């Protein structure tokens, strides 16, 4: 599990700041986590949440990510009616869930559906960094599993945006078992000869890295994204030593051979369209 600091709440309209400031959304300014510059929210939103001053990538909510990525009006959400279940009756989880739902305006930590990029159809999932640290509750696993099953049945490639602190502690063993369940669904989609591309974004860790996030045919990553099985704090505690500069960042993973390409945000639409085109049925004919 990761330090909460890694999951800065995106300060944007869709994520809906719960505070009651009178400031209008278009006037709101957001401090860049890297260069500390105060950037108007509207400017950030117009530039895919890339800091205009230093180029740092700000977090994007699951829905904003999709609306930014896909052809206008092409997103059709699946399983939007599925909501998390407090199966263990875990202390204070119910309250935590309703707070996450209220703040995000979403039912769970992942959105799934179908869409097109430059006319290429695909199935997609997009995880929400702010929803209990992007953790994998059972319904997150269920939605992802259903998406891969839907894609296999309808012969669609899958593009997924991963961001997660890992398993969701409050759902205990039900959360852990989603790693097996989603892996099974990815395997079946893969055995049907279909493409799966994942984009690892900051941060992707824990049980998500140890399951569907690393099982793609093509693994892309956003620059500087933290990607790892164990969080850096846990490793520092285990090893009792400081971690080297850049450890577990996207660039480090690519150097170690675990990531195919690092793709800046403004190049992602184009690269994904290219990958979808290269794997279209009949592309080899």
């Amino acid at each position, binding site marked *: *599990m990761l330090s909460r600091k890694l999951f800065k709440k995106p300060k944007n309209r869709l994520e809906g700041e719960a505070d009651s400031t009178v400031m209008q959304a278009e006037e709101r300014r957001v401090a860049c986590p890297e260069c500390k510059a105060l950037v108007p929210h509207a400017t950030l939103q117009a530039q895919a949440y890339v800091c205009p001053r230093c180029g740092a990538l700000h977090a994007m909510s699951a829905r904003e990510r999709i609306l930014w990525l896909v052809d206008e009006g092409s997103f059709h959400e699946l399983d939007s009616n*599925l909501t998390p*279940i407090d*199966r*263990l009756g*875990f*202390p204070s989880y119910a309250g935590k869930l309703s707070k996450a739902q209220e703040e995000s305006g979403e039912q769970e930590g992942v959105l799934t559906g179908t869409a097109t990029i430059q006319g290429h159809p695909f199935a997609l999932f997009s995880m929400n960094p702010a929803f209990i640290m992007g953790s994998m509750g*059972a*319904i997150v*696993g*269920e939605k992802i*599993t259903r998406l891969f099953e839907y894609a296999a049945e309808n012969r669609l490639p899958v593009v997924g945006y991963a961001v997660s602190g890992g*398993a*969701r*502690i*409050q*759902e*205990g*063993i*039900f*959360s*852990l*078992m*989603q*790693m*097996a*369940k989603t*892996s*099974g*669904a*990815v*395997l*079946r989609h893969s*055995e049907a000869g279909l493409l799966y591309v994942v984009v690892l974004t900051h941060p992707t860790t*824990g*049980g998500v*890295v*140890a*399951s*569907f*996030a*690393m*099982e793609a045919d093509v693994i892309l990553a956003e620059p500087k994204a933290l990607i*790892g*099985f*164990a969080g850096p704090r*846990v*490793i520092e505690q*285990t*090893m009792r030593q400081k*971690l*080297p500069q850049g*450890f*577990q960042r996207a660039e480090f993973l690519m150097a*170690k*051979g*675990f990531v195919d390409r690092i793709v800046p945000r403004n190049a992602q639409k184009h690269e994904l369209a290219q990958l979808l085109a290269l794997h279209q049925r009949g592309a080899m004919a």
Partner: protein
Amino acid sequence: MTEAYQRVQAARQKGRPTAMYYLTQIFTDFLEMHGDRRFADDPAIVGGIARLAGKPVTVIGIEKGVDTQEKIARNFGSAHPEGYRKALRLMKQAEKFGRPVVCLIDTSGAYCGIGAEERGQGLAIAENLMAMMGLRVPVISLVIGEGGSGGALALGVADRVWMLENAVYSVISPEGAASIVWKDAAKAAEASEALKLTASDLYGFGVVERVFSEEDGDFAALCEKLREALTTEFTMLSALPTEELVQLRYDKFRRIGGDER
């Protein structure tokens, strides 16, 4: 002290039998196979070929070690990616030769360290999950002590998952959960209760199919029972057409944590 936390402590108890004990008690003619043929041999995971009531099986176990020296050598049963890759290699070998696989699970978790990350701990676990989902021979996993998170599940995608009475199986250690949820690792007892990690909890959830009594500490008697149970179950599973076996395994995990409202 909660009942759940007593189980956690029993599962970690010094002197509790570890994987090698079950391996030698239940099976005969064990031939250990070393290494992942990629990087190294991870002593935290032992594996090889043995006989179960005369028939060849592949056995893989996470071994914590018995005395201090062995515990250190085996990294206290916390495997590196090489361990999981060795396990996968042996499972693929079992598939090739059509022998069933037994996995013995006893780990506080996969190792969290620099080398483990550099060599793809997450990927190693992910690959095992995917491969075990599609493995074309019967697999039975038995949690004998601690079932610690992804590092345990990496040997736990099986047709049958069984647990011993005092074994526990959890998404995170009680101490880890307590320090994240309550910012206080000392609340491990409460966390144990909240996580619902005991064998009987998991049996109730349908995550495990069978719980074995520890026969009041007579582990030799327990091993007799386990040998019998494994033999019977493999006879049944081996009779299933392969496609059906794989489909039933998928369905079993597919049901867990669905939307049953």
